[in-house]
């Protein structure tokens, strides 16, 4: 065990996976000499050479599209997209190509490629750097999506992603890169996809979240628990696709009261999917409407307003209180 920030865990994992398997390569904008704008790829270029750690032109479509070809040639590409917002430039390649190539080839040949991208708000970044776009990718059947909330999971899920035979989008929370720090297992550490993590148990209400919102929800849970004595659980989904329906349903059935928190705008956000799943599978256990906490149905605002926009502890706590108070 070593204590690491999420960023360190990502870097450490890339080093380990590149050392373990010579087919693994890293490509993207500024990932080589600079070591990435956040230094997630620092040291890789010196250690593994410019052929396997490639500073590409400023072309997200080509980075993602070439990754498919590289994978078919037997490489294992790990592409960094500088910010999740700029995956939109490659959306046709992700949705129409990487996600579909296995089906298109009749199951014969998949695409073992990983896309890493930082996302999420709270660090006063410029426009288009903070958006939470996971739901758009969750509609791309054939793609998997991991969204670690801890440094340990950043390692375990990234390792699983790189070794997964299907294309995986790994979402890394911008504001967690340095702020989230915890114990990371040394050596091989794989967190299997589709298994949620019970961050804390709770019998009266469960808050479901992923990525950086997990920390926010944990604080909200403690706050409400302290003030009310109610027992509030927090469930970290870890991967959105595949989704751990069992764990979600079990938590909903145990508590009867559910809050789902996300940073994205509410309309068609991934929280809606979680809500729909809970009410489909655990309807009779529900004692209160499932509450969503989200951003707003507006573009992510400029820095001066982002604190109003990104759901914070007080908004999550308010939703938990509302849910606890709702008549059964």
């Amino acid at each position: 065990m070593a204590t690491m920030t999420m960023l360190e865990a990502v870097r450490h994992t890339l080093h380990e996976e590149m050392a373990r398997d010579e087919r693994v390569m890293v490509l993207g904008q500024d990932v080589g000499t600079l070591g990435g704008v956040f230094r997630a790829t620092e040291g890789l270029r010196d250690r593994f050479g410019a052929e396997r750690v490639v500073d590409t032109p400023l072309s997200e479509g080509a980075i993602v599209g070439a990754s498919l070809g590289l994978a078919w040639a037997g490489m294992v590409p790990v592409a960094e997209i500088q910010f999740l917002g700029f995956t939109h430039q490659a959306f046709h390649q992700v949705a129409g190509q990487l996600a579909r190539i296995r089906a298109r080839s009749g199951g014969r040949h998949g695409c073992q490629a990983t896309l890493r991208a930082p996302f999420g708000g709270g660090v006063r970044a410029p426009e288009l750097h903070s958006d939470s776009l996971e739901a758009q990718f969750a509609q791309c059947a054939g793609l998997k999506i991991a969204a670690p909330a801890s440094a340990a999971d950043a390692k375990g899920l990234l390792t699983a992603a790189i070794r997964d035979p299907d294309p995986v989008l790994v979402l890394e929370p911008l504001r967690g890169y340095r702020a989230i720090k915890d114990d990371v297992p040394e050596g091989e550490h794989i967190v299997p996809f589709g298994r949620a993590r019970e961050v804390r148990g709770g019998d009266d209400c469960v808050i479901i979240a992923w990525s950086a919102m997990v920390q926010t929800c944990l604080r909200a849970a403690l706050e409400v628990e302290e003030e009310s004595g109610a027992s509030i659980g927090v469930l970290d989904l870890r991967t959105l696709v595949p989704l751990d329906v069992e764990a979600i349903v079990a938590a909903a059935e145990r508590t009867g009261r559910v809050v789902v928190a996300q940073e994205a705008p509410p309309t068609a956000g991934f929280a809606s999917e979680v809500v729909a799943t809970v009410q489909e599978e655990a309807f009779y256990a529900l004692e209160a409407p499932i509450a969503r906490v989200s951003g707003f149905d507006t573009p992510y605002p400029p820095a001066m307003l982002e604190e109003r926009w990104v759901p914070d502890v007080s908004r999550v706590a308010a939703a938990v209180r509302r849910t606890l108070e709702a008549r059964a």
Partner: protein
Amino acid sequence: MLRARRWSTRLFNLQRQGRMGTTAPIDGEEAAVVGSAAAMDPAVDWAVPQYREPVGLSRFGDRVLLHTILYHLGHPDAGAYPPDIHVFPTQISIAAQIPHAVGLAWGLRLRGEPGAVLCYFGDGATSEGDFYEAANLAGVVRAPVILLCVNNSWAISTPVRLQTAAGSIADKAAAAGIPGVRVDGNDVVAVREATAAARRRALAGEGPTLIEAVTYRMGPHTTADDPTRYVPPEELAAWAERDPIARLGTRLEQAGLWDDDRQRAAEEDADRRFDAAFDAAQATPLRDDVFIDTAYASPTPQLERQRRLLHDERSRGAG
């Protein structure tokens, strides 16, 4: 070439009889497709086509025809080429295959494998960002790829003149800093030679080449198209004079290498092969929930739940 046209015609006729989905006839473009494929070594090289070329890619294996038929039948195994057939599944999203071809070529080099990649696309495709981005990347990493634009003068109803103000498609190579070559796409020998030269460059580590094969789409865009609405008849007639198959036929006849008997034999052979492939295609098994098995390496728990639902509802519906 003759085979490609014949097979394309057979597909077309089957579509007209309602026994086949939309197809995109190759008529007129045989020299560009067959000629370029002829320069490749199917044991080590790859072809990455759009949708019009597969019928002309039997150089890469007899099975390509079977898969092409499966494709137009709408069968899920269409893209399931066995590992020894180095052909990418048919691409519908215009230009999207170009970055794949570049990545594949780049990857072959990184893996120390000997092949080059031949990527096909149309004149229309050269307006898409994917084309430029991929060509530019290929130039930077010196990928052993041949970017072969089949400029058939049309993108559905849009003539090349409205596609770009560039002097030629080959001129676009300058944007990627790679050689751009323009070749008579109706001259099968010229196309093969240009492709062979590009392949030599690729394998010598000199990087990609853009080849523009200038030709003409003599038929409709697809079976769903009515080209009489937009193709000037004089233009079509002028190109018909330059029909690549007739042209090669004349050359070979003059050299005493071709005659009516051989023509007939070749046609019969093409038909036999087509019939056999069509039978094989029709006999290819189809599982009604195969889409659940081919979305991921193994189905997610949600998909297994959806499979059960599918079967429950079907059996209820049938019951």
